[in-house]
Each structure stands twice: as C-alpha cells, then as structure tokens.
C-alpha cells in the first residue's frame, strides 16, 4: 500500500504495512498506520501529522527552545497538543506548576492514548489538565496568565485555521504575562502554497509581538522535510537571553535539541531570511496595550 501526501505538485510516498485505526470525529478523519520505515504514523484527513520515528524532533524543538530562554516558566498553555508530545517534554521541568492542554477533539486524544502510549504518558502527570475546547474560545477573556503558550495545532488550513490568525496571536499576546513567550509551528517556506501562509503568519506575529524570530528543524515526515517554528515574545530574545549553562545543568536527555543547535536553529538560509524581511516590510508594529 502506498500513501501519497502533500500538494498537487509534489508527492512523497511512504510504504505502509497495515492500517491500525480509523475514525471520523466532529472535526477530522483520523487514521493510524504501521510503516516499516517510520513506525506508527498518525494522519488527519489523509495528511501525516507525526510518526513515531520523528515526533521527538518537533516536540523537543517547541519546548526546549523557549524553556532555555525564559528564566522561570510556571504556567504553560498548549493549544492543540492532544497527542501529548509537547506535554511530555515539559514535565521534565520541575518548576512548571501547571500545563493546560486545550484540545477540542476527544476522539483524537483517545486515538493517541491507545496507539501512542509513550507519547501520551504525560497526561497522567498531575500538573497536566486536558481541556476539551476550541483554542480561541478558551483564550477569550484570558489576561496575563501564562508564561509560555505553545501553539501545537496542526495546520493553517482546515479546522484549526483559526489558530493561525491575527485574532489568535492577539488573544495569545493578551493571555501571556508581561514576559511571556509564544511558540508556534510556522510551516515550511519551500512550496509555493505554504510560502504564502508562511509570510502571512510571520506578518501577523511580527505586528503583534515586540520580538518575533523564526527557527528551523529537519523533520522527515513534514512536507519538504524542512520545518519552521515561530518564537514570539514580549520581553526575552531567543539568543540574547538564552542561558545554555543553566539548561545543560538540568541534565535533560534529548535526542535532537542541544544548546549548540539552539543558536544554529535561528541561523536561517538566505531565501528564508529574505522572505521574512519582505513580510516585515509595510507592517506596522501594533500599539502594545
């Protein structure tokens, strides 16, 4: 069985040995496959969300980058995150007191619990609260509550598209404390269709937050294999306020993230840098209030 994914113009195929699960929730079609190369794969509406073989890259990069910059994170909000991977990385930090996981799709959570028990194990940690609600709805009215918000929603197209909008960035800005950080997945700048979404995303974050930088990782099952993250912050700069000594002293075992890689991840190829500079042009920083 062949699986085709991604755009009209470019396809990547992954041999799959069998299908383990399929269900349709109110929001999406969820399926789990077994593949010789990537282990278990989870797809949403036919697109790969993550595989057991490379999920660590994504999860480590959205957690350890902000955690090594912010001096003391106590209250964290994860938007999406029903697979538990982000929460799993976070529970390694003892100073974190509370982790809210806001995931509207309970079918998705159940599928992950069943087929990816190693990823969802964080859900048993007493600091983790799962809230089944729409992300935008949850954020409404929240002011100055979180040190860190991680937008772990899937895609700027489809049912989570509301989580890639200006109103979402605005709501996150407001829900963060005065020194809060927001990390979000920024997609890939390589293919045309995504390039547009990539520019738009940076424009929105750039106009909403005083500091907004983009960093990169290599994730094989993501389209083009090259994936970006956004680092939007009210106070801390991802490089200038980065504290590698403190982070290394924690002794957290990672597979992808290192403090050397941290700095490298913000060093972008020229074509990406130019895209970002172009997106920043004509964009006026919001009056911060």
């Amino acid at each position: 069985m062949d699986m085709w994914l991604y755009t009209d113009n470019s396809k990547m195929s992954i041999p799959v040995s069998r299908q383990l699960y399929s269900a349709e929730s109110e929001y999406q079609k969820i399926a789990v496959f077994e593949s010789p190369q990537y282990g278990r794969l989870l797809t949403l509406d036919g697109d790969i969300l993550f595989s057991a073989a490379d999920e660590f890259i994504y999860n480590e990069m959205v957690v350890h980058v902000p955690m090594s910059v912010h001096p003391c994170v106590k209250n964290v909000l994860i938007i999406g995150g029903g697979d538990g991977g982000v929460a799993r990385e976070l529970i390694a930090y003892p100073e974190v007191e509370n982790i809210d996981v806001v995931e509207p799709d309970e079918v998705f959570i159940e599928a992950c619990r069943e087929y990816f028990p190693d990823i969802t194990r964080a859900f048993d940690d007493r600091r983790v609260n799962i809230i089944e609600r729409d992300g935008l709805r949850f954020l409404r009215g929240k002011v100055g509550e979180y040190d860190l918000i991680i937008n772990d929603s899937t895609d700027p197209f489809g049912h989570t598209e509301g989580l890639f909008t200006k109103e979402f960035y605005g709501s996150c800005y407001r829900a963060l404390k005065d020194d809060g950080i927001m990390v979000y997945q920024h997609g890939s700048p390589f293919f045309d269709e995504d390039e547009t979404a990539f520019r738009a995303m940076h424009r929105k974050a750039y106009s909403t937050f005083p500091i907004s930088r983009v960093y990169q990782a290599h994730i094989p099952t993501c389209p083009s294999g090259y994936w970006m993250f956004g680092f939007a912050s009210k106070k801390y700069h991802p490089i200038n306020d980065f504290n590698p000594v403190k982070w290394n002293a924690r002794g957290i075992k990672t597979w992808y993230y290192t403090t050397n890689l941290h700095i490298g991840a913000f060093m972008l190829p020229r074509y990406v840098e130019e895209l970002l500079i172009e997106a920043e042009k004509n964009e006026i920083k919001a009056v911060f209030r």
Partner: protein
Amino acid sequence: MLRSVWRRQSQAQLIQKIEQSRMNFRGFFIFPDIWRNIMDIERQKSAPLYEALEAFRRRRVVPFDVPGHKRGRGNPELAQLLGEKCVGLDVNSMKPLDNLCNPVSVIKEAEELTAEAFGANHAFFMVSGTTSSVQTMVLAACKAGEKIILPRNVHKSVINALILCGGIPVYVKPAVHPDIGIALAMETAEVEKAVLENPDAVAILVNNPTYYGICSDLKAITKLAHDHNMLMLVDEAHGTHLYFGENLPCSAMEAGADMAAVSMHKSGGSLTQSSLLLLGKNMDPGYVRNIINLTQTTSASYLLLSSLDISRRNLALRGKESFAKVVKLAAYARDEINCIGGYYAYGSELIDGVTVSDFDVTKLLVYTQGIGLTGIEVYDLLRDEYDIQIEFGDIGNILAYISIGDRIQDIERLVGALEDIKRLYSKDPNGLYLGDYVQPEVVYSPQQSFYAQKESLPLEKTAGRIAGESIMCYPPGIPILAPGERVTEDIIHHIRFAKEKGCSLQGTSDQNADYLQVIKE
C-alpha cells in the same frame, strides 16, 4: 463490438422510457387542493429538474446547440476553474429539460414542489436574482400612475421597478431605534393611516424581515390590505428560512400575502442569482408569468435552476434541523460578543409589539459604535486584518450572515477577531454620528424624475434641489436618496460621513459620488 454498441443504446433507451413514464405519471397526478398546504415529505424527496439533468448527462447527447463551449471542451480554462461536471451541466433549454419561459414538464413539477414546500399557491423559479422577483411583484401589482404604499427603507430594486412602471410611492415612515440607529418595522397604525389617506392605492409592500432582522406584523397588515382591496406584497429577500425553521417569525405565505420575493440564494443555500417568487391564491400565475417574461432571459441557466430544485429539497427534508443549528450558533455568538463589552449584539429584546413586531434571531447584528468605530470600519478591519468577510457594515452596525454552511470554529474566529479589534483599534465613541432617518419629501414620481432633464452638480451644492438619481451605500442597498426626492443638508451630511468612513456609494452616474444629478429647474 456491434453487439455492445447495440446494448448500450438499448440501455439508454430503456432509461429514457422509464424516465418518461415516471414523468407522465407525475404530470397526470393532480393533487386535490386540501393536500396542497400539507407538505408531503415523500414527494419532497424528489428533485425533478435535477433528476432530469442527471438523466440527460448520462445520455451523453452530442451538442449541436448553444452554449458554444460544448460541455467545456471549447473553453478548457473555464472547465478547469469550474470543474467538468459543472460546465457539462451548463446546457440550453430543450424538451427533456423544459423551458423556464413556459414550463410544462420538469421545471413545472419542480415549481409545484416548491410551492408546496413554501405553502404557496404557485412558485416561480427566478434567475435574475431577487431583484427580478421584487420587480415582478411591483410590475404585476401596479401600473403607471397607481399608488403603492411602502416603507422608505426598501431595497433599490423596488424603486427601480417604480421607475420602470411609473407607479407612485407612498412612503410610511419607519421608526428609528434611538440607540443603534436602525430603521424599525412598518407600524400597523402608520400603515393604516396611509391606507386611509390613500384609498386608491393598489398595493402595500413590506420588507420582512429587514436586512436587520426586524419584522412587521404581517398578518395585521395583510388583513388591512385585503380589507381595502389592496394587494399585499412582501420583499422576503432575507426570509427563506422562516418557511422551514421553528419558532421563527411568520412568513409571508403564512400571513396570507399575495406575493413574496424569496432569496433562495441567501439563507436557502442555492447559487447566487437564483431566487423565487411565490404567489398566494388571489394571483393569476399566467399574468405574472407574462410580466416575468417581459424582462427575463430566454436562456435561463440550468446551474441556477437545478440549484433551486436541490435547495428546495434540502430545505424541505432537513431545513428544520439546519435552521435550529443556525439559531443556536447565532445565539452563542450573540452571547459571546456581548461578553466582550463595548459591542451590542441585539436580539429578541428589541421586540416591543409596535416598532418591532418580531425579530429574526438567525441574524447576527452588532452595534459597534460603543467601541468608537463605525460598522463600516469594523467591516473593513475584519476583512483586511483578519481575513473575515461579513455581509455589511453601515454607520453603526455590522451584519454577520450565519447560515446552514457555518461551523462553530468560524464563529470563534469572528468573536475572537471582534475582541482583538476592540483591543487594538477602539477609540473614543464621542463625536461619532449615527445618522437620523429623515422622511424624504417626494416631489416627483421616480419615473418622472428619472427621465426628466437633469444637470450634474457637486454634492455640496445640491441642497434644496430634487434628485434625478438614487444614491445609496452598498450593501445594504437602501437608497439614501431616490429620484424625485428633495435633497437636504442632513442628507448631504449623511452621505459625506458615510463616504468618509469608507462606505461604497452607488447609484449615481458619477462613480465617485462627488456629483449628483438633479432635475433642471
């Protein structure tokens, strides 16, 4: 080889025979009147026009008729854009598919099913928008020099119909809500006054619900009209759902109106430009069809027609649940928006039995001046900054159209965006102008003034003169000035304010609306 060709032909012939016998059976099956008002769900499951189109498509008929794109082959870019199925169904009238100008088979059946579903005596499929339905109502009711009683806040299509037929408008002044600045219902007492003062009027026209969801007391006004030998016409462009949802305001046919223009493409889900005209029992369908055929195309689009047929079926079978969902979504959005503060999303609390007889709760209207922004400014911000397109923004309000296609996550986006707009863009509300409704002085009939000798003057210099053309913000398309009305300083101020705030002004020959055509003195 030959054998298989023969078999395919005979199969096609068989399908055609079955189709025909089925159609004949239905055609001869006449329903007694008493069954008319009760919608038969089994019958409503069929969609005769759509089924005929499907049967036609399967026959793979070779086209030596128009349209010249020949199932899209002659215009590959168009086929790419719209899809092969869509361009393949863009066909011309022919015997198996009936003809809209004089329906005798599948269109006739589809119209009958529609009439049944809406509780009407007759239904016409319309392909030039609800504008054509409204114009047909006016043209069918009123001849040159005859009076028609109507509220001034009608859609431009009504006034344009009066330009065509030479009818004389008698305006009933609607009250204006003091806080949110919207025009309210046709008060029954005001209508009665107009009826008594103009016993020679031939019809009363009401827009119900208005764009703003405001409903008049249709039953009382219909009785008033019929007691005085007048026709009752209802511009129901924003009321398709009233026929199918539960606990919604009274529909025109239920109230006993004589004609109603129903925008199926608004809340009914059909394609843009498709519409319905419904007739009550006093109207002669033959005469109305003649009126329609005065201006209607002889090449009606089957995409539009079949969309009407399918939408009618969908509404008849699933309308009740769909609109219950719409009501729920709108109520949720209203509550959430009212929690933000500054905005006012209004609902049934406006009902007072006089100026607002009922309110259409599927409409999500929000008064925005509480955060110091006009509706049009919020409308522009939503589109430019948040990629959210709403139906319209006027000086004080916005309308977000909630329909059978909406999802909760989109509602969350809208509410989230309104909250963010308040955070980033709110201003001091002092100094905003809400605009007062001014009952215009009608000096000449719309037709007289439209065809009169005119001159073009800068807007500022037109006070005291008589307008020779309309001017309106679009949307909502309700004229601020109609031909034959006297221009006042208030009206000029209103137009300039609307323009300054970014309303798109239409109706004037000068596309920038800096100049206005007035009647030569």
